[in-house]
Every structure is written in structure tokens, then in C-alpha cells.
């Protein structure tokens, strides 16, 4: 390893962030810019009969008011990931709905005015005449006969039915098991709540018919592709998409939203720059949500704890219309993870994706994998409980053993992808060195005698990061409508200073720093000499963006490969300058030198200068050190680890306190330990929050009850403890850096660890399962009964 990789180098991003200099979308002001406010449906299911905009138009300062009918020439948003191999009865939103709304918060009209206050005033004067229709908010209810029907092309509100594994074999094995555990597990709806809401600004040049659109985006190239080729039907080259500084995403900024295209359509109409920025209330109602599964599990086991079968059927709520990649989340990213770290010999998973009168559900941090991990890690505890065995003994009994790698999970559930590497005992043992389990069980016993209820929960998880390869996930495979490789370009300028551009699109991950570490080490130059640029379709190579824990494992690997190309060219030019044969020189520590005579050397800076001037180059070489690489990994990476959570449940109030949280993760090689730990901290907080506090709730008529920060329980500083982290390192063989990805690890692993801990604490009361969030009321009720 070099000087920077593996070091906690301080982030390049931070000076502009801690001083308030960084410009987020809302901070951008264009000259002549006007402001759009979207009028949203108050009903969850209704026909739009008439929209009267006349009073709104009269408000001084209003430039115009438009409804869906004015944008009939703009296509609906595309659904770019439909579940693979099955019919998807896709229904997607339009920039503004025309005939009908299927959830509260859908846009039906828009006001543009000189300032936002005026636009808001005018928006409140729009009168929409609705014909209310019956609503259904629960996916289980929506598929019952007689339920209100949302879309003509989706009978019984079913978007798609998908399965993986072997149903017959799994049912047979369940019949042969010594014990079978059946349980319903609800994975409740979550609301991502990035601290920066969504927004967009569009500028249009009529002479060239070109758009520039700023979006709160995790994937500017994808946004451009979808907006131009699918929504507007114009050449991709006629739009530039820029993500300014983005204040967190956690998945919700991957998608192409109606408003992003609406501002572009408006800018084209009025030929002035148009800005739209959602309020927090709009964010709750109209930005995508996550999770929302109701799952039945049947787990078969032998008396010795060996699990012989896992059958999972899930009803996944997708909301009123489909967001960009919604069907892919509860299918590929869920079902294919259901073997966990275990050698289950029989697995089956059947999924129904269902429309309901609720907000759109799509990827939220972990996306499908937290739901799968929750099923698997809860299943293990339920089996242990049933057999009266220790939860760790059952885990160890079922772990895939180190000599079984590469391991292909049973029944084709991964559709051919193998777990390339792993050693699942290793993080568990390390975690147990940090946490004295034996002592804890004694302390737990003592505490119970004193009326204190402690519990410990484990999660010995696996996840899939840097999801790939393109041919596996793409059309004809898992149904993702594009590729999933990533790109990077590196240019070494005449002065020896380096600019890296990447298709990754970070929004808090510190990728600017990580990429600079990789480039600096590989070229043997100072970290300060590397600038990393991103988040703009102009000037970066096409790439798929930042999500799915892919920026280091796929984007970082692309950069590594691009640097190798630069080094190869530098070797040729350096050799030429030294009047040596390329075979007789080596590239080391930023220098090309003659083998055996290190004094005869040219620095990368000298070579870059010579390359840029181009006065004397080796035959066949072009000027300049400028190389691009596109990296498509041969496999997903498979991080794993052990999380341990200790809770105390207060008997009299039912409240839960997280007393200790400990995680040992194996995310492969680590470029920047400080950044990696930070990702795990944030992930854990969100996973704990699902277990204990957060829940996106709709009432029967489809009104969002948890529609503000007062009602949706985002954890505050005093809700959480500090976390104890360590790691094991099993390099991933799928990319040249040996990294695996870490952004989602904490979220995926932590939720079941917390729930398992609370159930352990509640075991004296005979409680074996409660659904999340484990609020004090729920726990108090369970204790009382």
C-alpha cells in the first residue's frame, strides 16, 4: 500500500462545508430566475374533474399557472427497473397528473411567480374539483377481491408477481423438518428524510434548444438519460444535468421525479430560469419512501439447529405509482439475499408488488437487503428460541464454512452469482472478544432478579454491494434497464497537477477524498495535487452515479484502471526521454527510472510536461496523459460482519434504551478508515431508528399521518449511544482495490440486531416477536398481556 490508501486522510470536501461556502441547490440564484410552487392533491384517490386557476392567475407577480393538460406532450416518467422475467403492469407519474390522482401529494397544477411567497399565495387560490374514490392503503387489503382498483392495467392492484428459489423442494423440506417456525414479519414504511429536501432549477436556451438543469441528484447522467430520451424525446446531448452540493440522499435522490422534468418544461415554456424547492412537508408526502413489506416466513430446522428450509412470501407496497426503480427493490435486491451467511439447502421466495393509495416506495439505504437481512436474522433467532438453543450456536451451525467459497447459494436464488469470499466466524469471534457474552448472560440474570430487563441481539449478516455485472442485472437478466459499470477519467496536466472526473456522484460519502487518495498513491504524487470533479454531466464521463455502496467498489476501481493506463503511457514516454526501451524501465514512487539505475529517472511531472508539449514523443503515442476507464465488475461484492446490540427495556414504561452497540464489519480493503467508520455510524443510526422509532403511517383515507418532523421520529442526538467499531479485512477479488463498499452496511445489519436484543430482553414475558417500530406503547402492551 502507498502513502494515502489506508490512511484517515482529512476530507477535501470539508473546508467549504464547515464555513458555509458550499452551494447547495437552494443557494443557487440565476439572473431572471422565477419560482415554481406545485399544487398537490389533498386526496389519496380521486378523479380530477376540473381545475380553476383563474383566481391564482390574478395574483400580482404571478407569471402563469398550468395544469397537467398543458403538458400532454411530455411523456410520463419511465420505470427503468422492472422486475426481471415477469410482467410489470407499470404506471408511472406525469409531470402533473391529468385525470386522476392515486396518492396525496401528487402534483396537479403549478404556479410560477416572481418570488416563492407569491407562488405559494397563488397556489392556495387554485380550486381543484375532485371526484373522490374509495382508497386502500394496505398492500394486503389491496389485493383482496373487492378492493378499490387504482389502475386499469393492474388487476387486483398487482404490479408484478416474482419468485426465486425452489417452491416444491422447500415445501418438501419443511415437511421433513423436526420443527417449523411460522411468523409474520412486518418491515414498516420508512421515510428517507435527507436533511436537504429535493429541488431543481432549469434554464433553457431557445436558440440551441438546450437545457441546463440543476437537480438534487445522486445520478446526474441517469437523470439526463431518462429525462431526455424518455420524458422529452430529445437528444441526450441537449441537456446538461448538474447536481450541486447534495445534502444527503440515502436513495431518495436516485430517481427521476415529476418536478425535475416539470421545471425543465416550464423553463422551455416561459424562457426564464425556473426554480422549485420542496418544503419538508412536501418531502414527506411526495419524495419516495422505503421498505413497506408484509412477509410470512416458514423456517424448517432439525433438532440440532440445522436449518433445512426457508420459505418467504412477501407483499411489497409500491405506492400509488411506480418510482424509477421500484420493482427491482423487493425482487432482485431482496429475494436474492435470502441465504444470508448460511448454507440453507432449500429456499423459496415469492413476492407480489402492489399498488396502494400511498406515496411511492423505492430504494432507501440498503434497498431490499435490509428487508432480506431482517427476515434471515430474525428467522435464526426464532428457530433458536423454538429449540431452546443459544442464538450463536444456531448461527455457527448454519454458517457457510470457509472451505466452501466460492459459495453458490441453494436453489439458484442468486441466479448464478457466487459469494466470492468470506469467513463468517472471524468477525463474530472478534466481536465476542470485544463483548464478553458469558459475563453478559450472568449480568442479565442478576439484573432480571432486580427487575431490570437487559437483552442482547446479534446480526451476522451478509450484503451485496457494487451490484453487478451489467449483463447479469440488465435487461434480459434482472430487468435493470441499463448497465451498472462505472467510469473515471484522469488527466495529468502540463504542470503535473491532476484532475480526476468520475461518473460517481457523491453527496456526503467523501468520494472526492477517497478518489484523490487512490490517484495520488498510484501516481506517487502529493494528495494535494489531485482535484476530483463530479456531479455534472458536462465534463465527466457517463456513469451511473452513487448508490448501492458502489462508488469505491465500481467507481474507485474504474479510477484505478484509468491510472494504470496513464502509468503505461508514462512508462513509454519516460523511457523515450531516458533513451531506454520501455521494457528496461519501471514506474515507482512517481518516477520512471531505468531498472537497476534509479538515478536515471524522470518524474511523472516531467513526463506529464513532455506529454503535454508533445515536442518529442515515442512513435505512435499521442500528446497528453489523459485516460478513461469503464469498470464492469464480474460479480457483486459480498461484505459481511457481526453486529451486537445491548438494550434495556423498562418494565413500567416499555421504553427501550440502547446501552451498547458494537459492530465488526468486513468491507474488504479500506481506503480511508475514518470515512468508512463514518458510513457505518450513520448506517447504524438509520437501522436502529427503523427498529425502534421511525414509521411512515397513513390513515384509512390515505392521509400521511407521519408527515412532519414532529410526527416522524428521526433520531436525535440523545437517542443513541456512541458506537464501538472494529473490522476484519477479507479483500474482495472482484476489483483491483479489493474493496467491497460500506454505505449501506450499517443499515442492513443493525435493524435485526436491535429487534433481536429487545426480544431477548422480553423473553421472561414470553414475548417472541413484535413488529417494528418497537415503541414503548407496543412493548408495554406486550408486557401487560
Amino acid at each position, binding site marked *: 500500500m502507498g502513502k494515502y490508501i489506508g490512511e*484517515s486522510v*482529512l*476530507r477535501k*470536501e*470539508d*473546508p467549504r*462545508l*464547515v*464555513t*458555509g*461556502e*458550499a*452551494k*447547495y441547490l*437552494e*443557494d443557487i*440564484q440565476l439572473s431572471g430566475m422565477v419560482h415554481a410552487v406545485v399544487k398537490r392533491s389533498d386526496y389519496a384517490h380521486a378523479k380530477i374533474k376540473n381545475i380553476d386557476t383563474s383566481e391564482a392567475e390574478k395574483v400580482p407577480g404571478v407569471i402563469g399557472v398550468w395544469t397537467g393538460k398543458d403538458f400532454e406532450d411530455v411523456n410520463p416518467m419511465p420505470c427503468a427497473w422492472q422486475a426481471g422475467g415477469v410482467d410489470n403492469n407499470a404506471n408511472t407519474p406525469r409531470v402533473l397528473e391529468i385525470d386522476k390522482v392515486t396518492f396525496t401529494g401528487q402534483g396537479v397544477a403549478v404556479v410560477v411567480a416572481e418570488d416563492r*411567497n407569491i407562488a405559494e399565495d397563488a397556489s392556495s387560490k387554485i380550486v381543484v374539483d375532485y371526484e373522490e374514490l374509495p382508497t386502500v392503503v394496505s398492500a394486503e387489503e389491496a389485493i383482496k377481491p373487492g378492493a378499490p382498483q387504482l389502475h386499469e392495467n393492474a388487476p387486483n392492484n398487482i404490479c408484478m408477481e416474482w419468485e426465486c428459489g425452489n417452491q416444491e423442494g422447500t415445501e418438501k423440506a419443511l415437511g421433513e423438518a423436526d420443527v417449523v417456525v411460522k411468523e409474520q414479519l412486518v418491515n414498516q414504511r420508512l421515510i428517507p*428524510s*435527507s*436533511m*436537504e*429536501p429535493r429541488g431543481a432549477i432549469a434554464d433553457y436556451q431557445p436558440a440551441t434548444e438546450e437545457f441546463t438543469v440543476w437537480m438534487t441528484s445522486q445520478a446526474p447522467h441517469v437523470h439526463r438519460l431518462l429525462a431526455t430520451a424518455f420524458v422529452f424525446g430529445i437528444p441526450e446531448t441537449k441537456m446538461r444535468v448538474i447536481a450541486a*452540493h*447534495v*445534502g*444527503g440522499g*440515502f436513495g431518495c435522490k436516485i430517481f427521476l421525479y415529476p418536478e425535475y422534468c416539470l421545471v425543465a418544461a416550464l423553463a422551455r415554456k416561459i424562457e426564464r430560469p425556473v426554480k422549485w424547492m420542496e*418544503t*419538508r*412537508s412536501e418531502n414527506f408526502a411526495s419524495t419516495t419512501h422505503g421498505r413497506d413489506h408484509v412477509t410470512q416466513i416458514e423456517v424448517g430446522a432439525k433438532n440440532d439447529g440445522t436449518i433445512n428450509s426457508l420459505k418467504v412470501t412477501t407483499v411489497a407496497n409500491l405506492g400509488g405509482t411506480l418510482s424509477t426503480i421500484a420493482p427491482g427493490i423487493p425482487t432482485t435486491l431482496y429475494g436474492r439475499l435470502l441465504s444470508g451467511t448460511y448454507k440453507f439447502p432449500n429456499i423459496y421466495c415469492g413476492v407480489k408488488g402492489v399498488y396502494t393509495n400511498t406515496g411511492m416506495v423505492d430504494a432507501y439505504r440498503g434497498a431490499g437487503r435490509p428487508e432480506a437481512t431482517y427476515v434471515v436474522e430474525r428467522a435464526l433467532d426464532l428457530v433458536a428460541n423454538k429449540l431452546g438453543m443459544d442464538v450463536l450456536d444456531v448461527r455457527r451451525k448454519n454458517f457457510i464454512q470457509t472451505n466452501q467459497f466460492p459459495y453458490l447459494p441453494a436453489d439458484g436464488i442468486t441466479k448464478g452469482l457466487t459469494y466470492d469470499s468470506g469467513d463468517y466466524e472471524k468477525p463474530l469471534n472478534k466481536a465476542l472478544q470485544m463483548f464478553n457474552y458469558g459475563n453478559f448472560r450472568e449480568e442479565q440474570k442478576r439484573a432480571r432478579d432486580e427487575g431490570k430487563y437487559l437483552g442482547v441481539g446479534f446480526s451476522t449478516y451478509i450484503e451485496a454491494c457494487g451490484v453487478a455485472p451489467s449483463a447479469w442485472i440488465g435487461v434480459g437478466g434482472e430487468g435493470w434497464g441499463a448497465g451498472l459499470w462505472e467510469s473515471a477519467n484522469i488527466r495529468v496536466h502540463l504542470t503535473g497537477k491532476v484532475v480526476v472526473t468520475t461518473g460517481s456522484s457523491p*453527496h*456526503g*460519502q*467523501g468520494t472526492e477524498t477517497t478518489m484523490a487518495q487512490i490517484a495520488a498513491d498510484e501516481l506517487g504524487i502529493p494528495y494535494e495535487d489531485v482535484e476530483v470533479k463530479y456531479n455534472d454531466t458536462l465534463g465527466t464521463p457517463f456513469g451511473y452515479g452513487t448508490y448501492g455502496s458502489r462508488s469505491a467498489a465500481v467507481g474507485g476501481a474504474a479510477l484505478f484502471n484509468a491510472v494504470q493506463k496513464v502509468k503505461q503511457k508514462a512508462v513509454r514516454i519516460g523511457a523515450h526521454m531516458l533513451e531506454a526501451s520501455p521494457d528496461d524501465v519501471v514506474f515507482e514512487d512517481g518516477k520512471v527510472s531505468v531498472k537497476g539505475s534509479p538515478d536515471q529517472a524522470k518524474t511523472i511531472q516531467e513526463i506529464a510536461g513532455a506529454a503535454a508539449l508533445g515536442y518529442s514523443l515515442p512513435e505512435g503515442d499521442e500528446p497528453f496523459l489523459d485516460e478513461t476507464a469503464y469498470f464492469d465488475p464480474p460479480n457483486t461484492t459480498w461484505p459481511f460482519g457481526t453486529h451486537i446490540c445491548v438494550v434495556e427495556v423498562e418494565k413500567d414504561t416499555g421504553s427501550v434504551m440502547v446501552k451498547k452497540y458494537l459492530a465488526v464489519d468486513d468491507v474488504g480493503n479500506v481506503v480511508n478508515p*475514518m*470515512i468508512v*467508520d*463514518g458510513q457505518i*455510524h*450513520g*448506517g*447504524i*443510526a*438509520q437501522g436502529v431508528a427503523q427498529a425502534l422509532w421511525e414509521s411512515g403511517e397513513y390513515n384509512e383515507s390515505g392521509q400521511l399521518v407521519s408527515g*412532519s*418532523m*414532529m410526527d416522524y421520529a*428521526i*433520531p*436525535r*442526538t*440523545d437517542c*443513541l449511544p*456512541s*458506537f464501538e467499531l472494529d473490522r476484519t479485512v477479507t479483500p474482495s477479488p472482484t476489483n483491483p482495490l479489493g474493496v467491497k463498499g460500506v454505505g449501506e452496511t*450499517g443499515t442492513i445489519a443493525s435493524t435485526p440486531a436491535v429487534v433481536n436484543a429487545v426480544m431477548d430482553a422480553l423473553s421472561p414475558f414470553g414475548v417472541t416477536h413484535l413488529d417494528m417500530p418497537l415503541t414503548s406503547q407496543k412493548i408495554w402492551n406486550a408486557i401487560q398481556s
Partner: protein
Amino acid sequence: MKVSMRVNGVDHEHDVEPRTLLVQHLRENLRLTGTHVGCDTSQCGACTIHVNGEAVKACTMFAIQADGAEITTIEGLATNGELHPMQKAFWENHGLQCGYCTPGMIMASVDMLKNNPNPTEEEIRHGLEGNFCRCTGYHNIVKSVKAAAESMQGGA
């Protein structure tokens, strides 16, 4: 209505609508966009600034209520190009990721240390409960504030 205030050491006078929030005034009229808006219910703390030396959520006040006030925003925290010890501590301890909550978090933390220069972890967590961060899980924010407290005491 006329409103004048001293912001980061500079006097400003503007005509504002009475309904203009202080945070709006700072961001839109003074173009001090380092103060962020994260909610519409005064919960998130992203807009925290100092008004007459006290931490205030700038979305809870109208601009006209700050008439004559002395205000510091995140842009005014560094002196002569030197980061404030709190800004440095957040940088050095990875107390931020996306940075959106950070200006408010830093302003709230500076205020907390003014009243309690040597807080325990529990006091820090309690003191920052009005500031949401969705990225860091708060672990490194707590660490940053502790580090700043130490460095500020060392310096004093």
C-alpha cells in the same frame, strides 16, 4: 418595513415584508446561504445562528424581530481566514458528511460550549437534541464537540 441589523460585523439595512423569516432574509437578501433550511416546523436546527450572542433557530423569528440585533452566521465564525476551533474540530473528527446540518450544528455547539466549556458526552447529546443530522449517527459530532472543548480550554 425597514430592518437593520449587524451581521458578521457588517451593518445591513433592508426593506422587507413583515412575514419574511429571519432565515429567509439572511439567505435571500444578504445572500448568506451557509445557514440552511431543513424543515418547516422548527425541528431540525439546520438554520441555527447566533442572535445577540445566543443560539437561535433563524426560522423561528421574523426578520423584523431582529431589528437592531447583532447576528453571527456560519460565514462569520472564522476570523482572519482562521477556522474557529469548532469548525476545525468538525473537520478533524469527521463530524460531517453531506454538510447540510453542519453550519447549524457548529453554531449550536459553539453556543453550548460558551455556557458549558467542558461538557460530558451526555451533556453534549442533550445540548444538541434540537439539531438533526441524518448522515453521521451523531457519533463523530459528539467527538468533534469534545475535541473542540479540549482545544478551546487548552487555548484559553
